[in-house]
């Protein structure tokens, strides 16, 4: 098998690594951009309101469920836009696991398809039902 000179990993493996690297970078950049946009709007609208984080209130449904966040974004609510950026950030490693699963399936590496499938299932459970 031909090996790359630097890492010694097989070429197919190295292509997966390059793709994962790109995926993570793009995910973080998009999430940060959305968060900055929402944050600018948030500060412009509520910047001079009093901050209160001493007492725990939890968050309204608009900011704690995927449906609520999407509905809030549709109304251009700044807090919902920031929260969307955070959800995109959480989704970045999840997308990485899904991609790894597909890459293992293409190579018919069923043991690793199972392993990535378990991790992916746990992440989806947390994100949708947690």
């Amino acid at each position, binding site marked *: 098998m031909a090996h790359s000179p630097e890492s010694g990993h097989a070429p197919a493996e190295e292509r997966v690594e390059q793709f994962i690297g790109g995926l993570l970078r793009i995910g973080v950049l998009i999430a940060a951009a959305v968060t900055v946009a929402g*944050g600018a709007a948030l500060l412009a609208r509520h910047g001079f309101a009093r901050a209160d984080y001493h007492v725990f209130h939890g968050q309204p449904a608009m900011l704690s469920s995927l449906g609520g966040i999407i509905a809030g974004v549709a109304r251009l609510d700044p807090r919902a836009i920031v929260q969307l950026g955070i959800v995109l950030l959480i989704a970045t490693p999840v997308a990485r696991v899904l991609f790894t699963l597909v890459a293992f399936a293409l190579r018919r590496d069923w043991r690793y398809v199972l392993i990535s499938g378990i991790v992916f299932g746990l992440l989806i459970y947390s994100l949708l039902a947690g």
Partner: protein
Amino acid sequence: MTILTLTTLVFTGAFTAGLIGALTGLGGGAIIVPLLTLGFGVDIRYAVGASLVSVIATSSGAAAAYVREGYTNVRVGMVLEVATTIGALTGAFVAGLVAPSVIAVIFGLVLLHSAWQSLQPRVEHITEGPSDPLAKALRLDSTYPTEHGPQHYKVQHVPAGFGLMYVAGVLSGLLGIGSGVVKVLAMDRAMHLPFKVSTTTSNFMIGVTAAASAGVYLHRGYIDPGLALPVMLGVLCGALVGARALPKLETRKLRLVFSVIVAILAIEMLYNGITGRI
């Protein structure tokens, strides 16, 4: 305090935490929660939620670079992520059941251990003998780049590493930290991976681990956008600047200073937790 003032101050603090975290290799998560709770009087649940988000951002950003350089062992990462995600879900559920002061005390103890651990010299364990049979079955042995070309390494004690990773996941979900110290312990000491491989693979897994608990935190309403915003952006910017400055700095002294800071924060967390102020 207005939201604008708080955002600016928290951003500055988070930037510093990210910078120091990147320079010492310990991550910024360990300082964010004490900074928010002790410094700004933020409820520990909001603080842990915001910290988790920043942990995902920095680890994904750094992993993007490391994985391309070929140090990260993706297969070891995938196998151990089963343990860390189950642990992270456990930690996140436990966080909803115990009093905030209990979390503060556990946080203090983990910080004390991190401060002590970061001062210990890391001993490279390279084994000549055969690999763990599980490592063979899962094809975990791999190579990593060195100056003299690819270097082969064998993976040991997979079950012990898996068990320690579960603990790392629980701590991550409970405290909103990356638990890099426990992860490196599992991979250096138990599984005998080379330093560069264990550090980068640990970082690779932190994003997935934190994402598992962040989902639970989001649904519970522990993630406040107004607070997570400056924390995430601050730590991310600080970590980026730190990563650029890293090759030019003497990190041994920096680690010592950082360990002292972490130890002081640990004692503050313990005191506030025990006296019920958090």
